[in-house]
């Protein structure tokens, strides 16, 4: 059963990783992916993340359940933030634990690929000059990355 949190607050990736392996002897590998907000060469002051409350949790739970069927995971944590996020701040954490590294690496990649293309979040740019920029467009390369798991 995955741990899924949708929150405005920042998270502590190291503390989450430690929590996943604490007090158990069967975890041989954890893979932690953290996605950060970039400033796009100094152009952005922030990214604003809108989400669909209720569906965001439900969709991530469906993706996590698919990962748990596919790989022998001993733990899976997903934290996705919403609201205004500044460059250098974390946006998303995927943490996969398994007995061996391959399952943990692959499951983390699978989670991120599907998070990008099917979790209901939308990014909008806030520019350094104080104006609100455009909605970020979905990338075909993200769809291609997701397609490789089919």
């Amino acid at each position, binding site marked *: 059963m995955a741990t899924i949190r949708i929150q405005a607050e920042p998270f502590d990736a190291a503390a989450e990783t430690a929590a996943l392996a604490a007090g158990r002897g069967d975890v041989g590998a954890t893979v932690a992916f953290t*996605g950060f907000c970039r400033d796009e060469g100094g152009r952005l002051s922030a990214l604003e*993340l*809108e*989400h*669909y409350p*209720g*569906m965001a949790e*439900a*969709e991530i739970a469906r993706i996590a359940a698919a990962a748990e069927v596919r790989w022998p995971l001993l733990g899976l944590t997903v934290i*996705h933030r919403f609201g205004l996020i500044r460059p250098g701040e974390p*946006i*998303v954490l995927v943490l996969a634990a398994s007995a061996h590294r391959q399952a943990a690496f692959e499951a983390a990649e699978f989670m*991120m690929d599907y*998070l*990008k*293309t*099917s*979790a*209901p*979040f*939308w*990014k*909008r740019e806030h520019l350094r000059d104080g104006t609100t920029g455009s*909605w*970020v*467009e*979905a990338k075909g390369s*993200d769809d291609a990355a997701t397609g490789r798991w089919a």
Partner: protein
Amino acid sequence: MKLVYFAWVRERIGRADENVDLPEGLVTVADLVRWLKTRGEEYEYAFENEAVVRAAIDHEHVKPEAPIAGAREIAFFPPMTGG
């Protein structure tokens, strides 16, 4: 039925959600979109490229041909850009 909108779909329509009484004869999500586009230019603008706008019924992604009977909440939104 409750309709909810996100990101630029929400902005183009000018509201985040609404309750609508659907006319007889709407069977699929695509039928609903066609009907919404008759309700004003803000809807025409939001759905000007129907293939781009995604839909969900009761928090699950659906295709345009999905039936809407029994749905509590239908959402329309652009392709997702989270992660």
